[in-house]
């Protein structure tokens, strides 16, 4: 089920009744070993992944971004377009990025973005310290 390319999707909520809304980020079309949630305050934030970074060899895994509220922009290594994720009404955007592709995320204020990793990222290995 490994990803070959970047996939952007606008998804509707799964269910709503008088008690709550149910929203799924994935359901049988992705498998995650690890899910991290990022919640911003009233300030935006930027996050840079280290996929393929020569100094911080790290997370080589398919990654699924799902925006639960607010907004986020994702720049993916090798892609010409910037992906704008928004949550509007009943629509929740998600973006899937294949392993080995670096990305920069700009998360808007008061947003909730989840990152699901298909395989648990190994700790980054850093080059040995140089003594000058």
């Amino acid at each position: 089920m490994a990803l070959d390319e970047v996939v952007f999707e606008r998804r509707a909520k799964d269910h709503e009744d008088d008690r709550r809304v149910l929203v799924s980020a994935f359901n049988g079309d992705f498998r995650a070993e690890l899910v991290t949630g990022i919640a911003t305050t009233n300030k935006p934030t930027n996050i840079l992944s280290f996929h393929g970074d020569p100094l911080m060899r790290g997370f080589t895994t398919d990654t699924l971004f799902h925006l639960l509220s607010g907004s986020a922009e994702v720049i993916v290594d090798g892609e010409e377009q910037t992906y704008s994720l928004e949550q509007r009404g009943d629509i929740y955007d998600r973006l899937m990025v294949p392993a080995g592709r670096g990305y920069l995320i700009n998360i808007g204020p008061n947003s909730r973005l989840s990152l699901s990793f298909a395989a648990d990222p190994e700790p980054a290995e850093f080059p040995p310290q140089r003594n000058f």
Partner: protein
Amino acid sequence: MHGQYKSITDRGWGYCNNVLDLEEFESAQFQTLFDAKEAGFTAAQLKFLLPFNQEVVLGGHYHTYGEAFSMWHGKSTFRVEETLDENQIQEGVQPVRSEHNLTAKDRGYFLVPPGKAHGAKAGPHSVLVGCTAEAFQGNDSAKPYKNDWLMFKQ
């Protein structure tokens, strides 16, 4: 079944915070919502349950696959019960029951083993995160199992 997530990712973000000194990180909170090492399974489904402006009772069912819960915002109380068949109920067998509180502040998680009936009472405007070992394929996936205790009526 009940504890706190402390994953490699948390440590990784900590490294970013401390070594790279990115001020932007101060404007965001990072939280591990699911870790297969803790749950014992990889997640086939990631769902968010978003109660409206009042406390709600959810669940009241069991299924053959495990489910892991965490709170991204707010708090909830879980109740779990060993399922009994008709004969056991008629014989007056008392089910094994347990109750667990979960809060986003404590970054706790809660695992429901396969076959255990469970229900939850979630606070208003909370964000309850559920990960299941198998995809949800309609109501055949979960069998209803309700009683007053499980549904917080007593």
